[in-house]
Each structure stands twice: as structure tokens, then as C-alpha cells.
């Protein structure tokens, strides 16, 4: 069921602490973010660290996060900030200064934020083709099947609230079983 949910719905579930939603987001974006980070840092270990930091902070700060645009845009800009932070601390890319200066002198750039976001997303997402076939499939599926709670509810003929609960329930039931079990152990 998670595979059929759109990014926004997954993000909503994540905010409620849904681990399966987090895992689905991981499977959708981790490969692409890693390739993106490799391309800009030109250093595989730094790239891996950047992506892992992003997912850890996504989980730790889940309750307080809000999306300005799409989940993808949020993740892409998280990579960008982590990268610039490493540039600032001179941990990567000693060559960047000259390249940036040349770019400034050349004086041509995208003034519109929306165009920049689209351009960046296209550049990142075109490298989905360099991912292993299975990861490519997960990414493409996520772009075609984008159900919301409501659509799943319609399909199953149950209320939206019930769907959200059912998606959340697996985890809660598991938790309460563990609870009862340890209580049982306690008595004996």
C-alpha cells in the first residue's frame, strides 16, 4: 500500500512517526540523492555521509518539518545545503573557487526561482538511469502511482480516517503486542 501513496501523503504519515512511510521515502530517493551528492562533491565517502545525515535529520526532525514545495525539492535542497556547508569548511572541492569566479564573470544566470528549481530537478532526475534497475523502478512507480488516503479509501470503500489508521495500525499493534508480552513475562 505504501508504494502506491504519493510523496505528500507519505510525508504526512512520516510526521506521525510512521516508520514504513520513512522507509518508502528512503527507497524512492536515497539512490538518486547519493548520485547527486557524488556528482557535486566528486568524492564518494563525503557523498555517502551527506545523504545519511539528511535521512537521519528527516527522521529526527519529522514532527517539526513542513514542506514549502514537493518532498523531492526539499530533499534536493538539503543535499545542496550540506554540500555548500562542506565547501565552506573546505572539506571538498578545492577547485570550486576558480570555477565559481569564472561563472560570476561570465554573468549569465537564471533569475527565476521556479526555473532554477525545475532545471535542478531535471538534472538530478535524469541520472535515475544510472541507478540499478530495481531502484529505477521504485522511482518511476512513485511518479505514476500517486494515491492519497482518499483515493485508497474510495477504492476499498472505507473512510479516509480508516485508511490512515490501517496504515498506522501495523506499527501500533506491533508495539502493543510487545507491551503485553513483556507485561506477561513480568508476572511469571
Amino acid at each position, binding site marked *: 500500500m505504501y508504494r502506491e501513496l504519493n510523496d505528500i501523503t507519505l510525508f504526512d504519515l512520516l510526521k506521525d512517526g510512521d516508520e514504513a512511510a520513512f522507509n518508502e521515502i528512503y527507497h524512492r530517493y536515497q539512490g538518486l540523492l547519493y548520485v547527486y551528492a557524488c556528482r557535486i562533491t566528486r568524492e564518494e565517502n563525503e557523498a555517502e555521509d551527506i545523504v545519511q545525515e539528511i535521512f537521519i535529520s528527516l527522521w529526527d526532525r519529522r514532527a517539526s518539518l513542513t514542506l514549502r514545495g514537493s518532498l523531492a525539492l526539499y530533499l534536493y535542497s538539503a543535499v545542496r545545503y550540506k554540500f555548500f556547508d562542506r565547501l565552506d569548511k573546505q572539506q571538498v572541492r578545492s577547485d570550486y573557487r576558480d570555477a565559481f569566479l569564472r561563472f560570476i*564573470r561570465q554573468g549569465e544566470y537564471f533569475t527565476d526561482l521556479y526555473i*532554477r528549481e525545475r532545471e535542478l530537478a531535471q538534472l538530478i532526475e535524469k541520472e535515475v538511469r544510472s541507478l540499478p534497475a530495481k531502484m529505477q523502478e521504485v522511482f518511476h512507480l512513485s511518479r505514476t502511482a500517486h494515491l492519497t488516503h482518499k483515493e485508497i479509501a474510495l477504492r476499498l470503500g472505507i473512510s479516509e*480516517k480508516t485508511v490512515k489508521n490501517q496504515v498506522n495500525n501495523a506499527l501500533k499493534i506491533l508495539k502493543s503486542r510487545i507491551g503485553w508480552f513483556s507485561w506477561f513475562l513480568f508476572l511469571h
Partner: protein
Amino acid sequence: MVYMEKYTPEELIRKYLAGACTEEEKALVESWHISDLAGSAYIPDEEKINAVHERMQTALAAHIQATRPTPRIGPLRFRMVAAAILLLVLAGGYWWKTHQPREHHFAKTPAPSPADIAPGHEGAILTLADGHTLVLDSLGNGTVATQQGTRLVLSAGTLAYHPAAAGTEAIVYNMVHTPRGRHFRLVLPDGTQVWLNAASSLRYPTVFTGPERKVEVNGEAYFEVAKNTSMPFIIKTPTETSVQVLGTAFDINAYSDEPSINTSLLSGSVKVVAGPLPSQRTALLMPGGQAQVTADGNIKVVDHADLGKVMAWKNGVFNFQDAGLKEVMRQLARWYDIDIVYEQGVPDFEFEGEINQGNTLAVVLNSLEKVGVHFRLENGRRLVVQP
């Protein structure tokens, strides 16, 4: 636009990280990033990608496990039950209040109370060729995007496609989708105008090339097709039914929860094609006619359809002439974004008359109550039909 080199690259990056850049500086930093990314060929191999994926997944699972709080099911469950009871009491209070006999009949339009539901309005969601979505309700007038040279311009709630004058690149598709409670109007690249009813979608190329103009419809839409005899306009539905247009105005109702797909012709001529080959059936409609394609692929043609009823939604009214309760409820569900539940079967009613779609749900329900239907609103958006 030459940047005056007020800052060094280091300073710009630092300002960017601190969120202290001007718009121009921000544009400069991000544009450099885009051009730097575009020029990079540093891509890890598949083996490496897989290994990192596995390794990171394990690390994250361990992190989540370590930070998980001990579950406290008891108090949470109790609070949830308490909240549910409170909601029921509140909802019950509302219905008890609204069901009291009224002394003042001149107060025709009750003020929307917190338990009421506002009507739908203009708006839709646009999906671009690369999968990005734009909520069109919230955007101002002007160019909202470009697709392969075609400009997408939003003006007074209508989205229009302006194809580039020169030759076009590869064909890409856009989709406009209205959720429940939204109507939307758009103008396709050939000048064809489309009005989308609630809970509907239209998929189309950003420029028409080739021998036909092909689009796909889900739900209900009214078309005023621009004339072009050398390029017939073809509308596909989720089923095997398609409509071939020969320059004309008509409505197609292809909601999956309606018993048949109805094509109603206002002017010109259309050909309705139902079912897969070789058992395909076709019907040619005359103005005023309606073709009803049922699930088994049969076509029933009504020569003089009630076009006022068909076109009511486009004019912002519900027309319930000769409609049964279920038909009425399906329309309310789409416009007020509510779910309908029948507590004990579907009561047998037949309605007549029109009501404005600008009314809140309570006003519409109030007029249905007068006929003798009884309702109860639960959990905010669940309307229970009582016997």
C-alpha cells in the same frame, strides 16, 4: 546582467548558508550550482550504489531503533475515546438544533455553522511532463510554466496553451486534475475549450501533431472543439469508449461511479465508439442527442436529451430533474467532498428542480429534508442517509 563581484565566492557561499543573500546573489549561487552539476560526469557505478544503499539502510534502522520512545498505549487510547465521544456529542447537538421546528421561515439561508461544509470553487492541479505538480488555485495570473516551447498562461482562472511559432520538439503530456469540490476551464493548444467538472481529469499533449488530436478524460468534461477537418479530435475514456469529434460542442460524463458513460451533443456532430475490436459498436449523434454506453459496451441513443440538466454543472447549478437519491448524492459527494453512507438501504425518492452550487451543504440538505430525506453528518465529511 553582470554581477559586480561585491563578494568573493567564499563570502557568497557563507551568506547563502546563513540565509542572508539578496535575490540576485541567491540566483547567482544556485545557478552556479546548476551549471556545475550539469558539467559533472562523476557518477558511481551500480555496485557502489547498491552497497551504499544497503549499508545506509542498516545504519538508519539502528538509529530509529535507538531513538524510539517506549510505547505508551494506555493514555493515548483513552484520550482518543474521549475525543470521539466529545465529537459525537457536538455533532449530535448540531443535528438536534437544526432539527427543531422553525418558527421563522423567512430565515431562508442559515448561516454556515462550524459543522457546515462550504461549496466548491474554481481550481485544479496541473501535472507537468516531468511529474511536477502545480496547484492552479493558488497561482497568480501570468506564465506558470513552459513545456517544450509551449507557454502555459493562467488568466482569470483559465489555463491556456500558447504553442511556439517554430517547429516543435518531442511530444510531452500534461494533465489537469480537479479534486472533489473544484471546477476548471482550460484552452488547449489548438484553441479547443474544455470545462472540467469536479473529481475529473484531462490528459493531453502540449502541442497537437500527427493525424489526430487525442486527449483522455476521466470524470466529466464539456468540450467546445476548434474546427480542423484534417485533424479529427478524439477523446478516450478509461473504458473502451471513445468519442470522435468532427468540430463541435458536447459534454461527456465518464465518472466511474455512474451507471453509463453519457455523451450529449449540443452542436456539430460526434461519433461514439464503444467496446474493443472486433465487437466495436458505434453511434453517430445529432445535435440534442445523447449516447449512453453501459458497462457491457451497448450504446443506447436518446434523440432529445435534457440538455439543461446535462449542462447544469457548467452553469453552476445542480439539476435534480427526475433524479433518484443515489444520483443526487453522487453529485453532492463530488462538489462538497463528502462520503455518503446509506444506513438502511437507499430510500426511494425522485427529485425535481434546481439549486445553486454556491450554497453551503446545509442549505442544500435543508431543501432535500423538505422532501422527506433524513441525514446526519458524522466525522466532519461523512453524510449518513437515514431511513
